């Protein structure tokens, strides 16, 4: 993201809007972006409203008003001069946008967002089956961000536990060695708002994997959000909650797939899977 020095009037409205705190008012009293901290999420550009005032006259008016102890202050969500300008990104920086901007479609998965559909479409894909646990480990969330060098540290530790990473997940597609959990070297210094690592295990392996995640999370310069899923039995009950309770996790908030999905595409009808 770039902020036009020609248009910016230094009102600082964009400063708190940045989820990474990457926008600051510089020595010239105009806003500027710290490129190391910016994750190219485009939140400032997409979320702020724009008024199309000319930069020069507004800067002059601001200085004049300041002299008589008055203040020009637009609504807090408003950039008065449309000074925010997205950049055309090249590799490897484009990785930042792919993981941080939810309106960008990942080329690897074909869907919006930082992971896959997880269990949200499990009723038609049967991705996580009976007796299995699907792990969704999100690094950098909430609101902290993460460098891929930290993700690499975690995925290598998880690979050491013998987990097999979900093939359709965007992070897996950026691994140079999925067996060892190694992320490709040219993106290790790229920062994203968050990214999701997915894999599944047998239910009996859940305690060991949870301990491994907890241990590696302590070594990271970020935060981790963790979701664990499973398939329910024919009565709608699941064995996972008891497993989590035994490990000291009081799991009371969840996403529940109601089983209303149906394979309806003409070409898929003949090849229905047992879901």
């Amino acid at each position, binding site marked *: 993201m770039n902020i036009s020095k020609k248009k910016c009037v230094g009102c600082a409205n964009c400063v*708190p*809007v*940045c*989820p990474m*705190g990457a926008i600051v008012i510089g020595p010239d009293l105009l806003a500027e972006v710290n490129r190391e901290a910016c994750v190219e999420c485009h*939140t400032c550009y997409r979320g*702020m*409203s*724009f*008024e*199309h*005032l000319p930069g020069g006259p507004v800067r002059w008016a601001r200085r004049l008003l300041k002299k008589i102890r008055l203040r020009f202050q637009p*609504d*807090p969500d*408003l950039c008065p001069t449309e000074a925010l300008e997205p950049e055309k990104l090249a590799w490897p920086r484009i990785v930042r946008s792919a993981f941080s901007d*939810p*309106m960008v479609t990942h080329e690897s998965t*074909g*869907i*919006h*967002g930082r*992971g896959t559909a*997880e269990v*949200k*479409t*499990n*009723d*038609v894909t049967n991705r*996580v089956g009976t007796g299995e646990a699907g792990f*969704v480990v999100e690094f950098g*969330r*909430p*609101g902290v961000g993460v460098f891929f060098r930290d993700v690499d540290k975690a995925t290598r530790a998880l690979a050491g536990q013998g987990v097999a990473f979900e093939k359709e997940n965007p992070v897996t597609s950026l691994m140079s060695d999925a067996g060892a959990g190694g992320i490709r070297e040219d993106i290790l210094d790229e920062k994203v708002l968050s990214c*999701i690592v997915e894999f599944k295990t047998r239910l009996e392996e859940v305690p060991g994997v*949870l301990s491994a995640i907890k241990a590696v999370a302590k070594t*990271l310069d970020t*935060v*981790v*959000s*963790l979701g*664990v899923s499973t398939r*329910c039995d024919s009565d*709608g009950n699941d064995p996972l*909650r008891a497993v989590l309770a035994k490990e000291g*996790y009081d*799991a*009371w*908030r*969840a*996403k*529940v*797939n*109601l*089983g209303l*999905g*149906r*394979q309806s*595409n003409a*070409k*898929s009808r003949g090849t229905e899977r047992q879901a």
Partner: protein
Amino acid sequence: MTNTLHRFGKPDTLRDDYIVFAMAAKGINDDGAAAKVQTFFRTALKYDPINMGNAVINPLYRPEKNLTFLKLYFSGRHEKVAPETFIAEVAALGTAAVVFGNRGAMGGFLKELQDLDLGLSVNVSALVDDVREVCGEIHLTPHSVEYSLPFAGDLERLPERDILSLTTMCGHGMIAANFARKMVDGVREGRFGHDQACQYMAKFCVCGVFNTTRAMRILEAAGSGT
């Protein structure tokens, strides 16, 4: 895409917060999904939803990109579009999401979805026992469940409780902690009202899963120091 799973708060503060999703899997049930999702949204309107979106187009609350001095002066801000305007713009499924503020509305909507048999995968993100109770009442059997576990890692980097409760209502992290803090302070200082602050924040959540009613409660509690 765990964008609603990890909403921060104690169970009693999350009791009236239900997000219902519709999704299709590529190559399995995505044919004609755009029309189905329009039906999904139109059906939701009967139950007075708080917010809706699909992460492909701007949700109900959206920024105004063409403001002028005259527009601002004579017409003011228009931060929420009519639901029908939003629904008419839906051209692709994305992750269609509707937010409800009470259990009855969520249950009624699910019952009607069951009868409509759209064939889309439907999920509810909420307190799991509430969802199971509603499923029992309308004779739905949950297929799969994904539990949210507590945050791990360097927790000192997280903001304070009220701010985290607000920011995690946009799971993609589009609502900055500093902006939420500015909203809390702005309300306390009387610069703008609770509802205005909620609308400012809601516009940054592109999936339309920000619960403005819950945000009002959080802002009120933060304002009173409780």
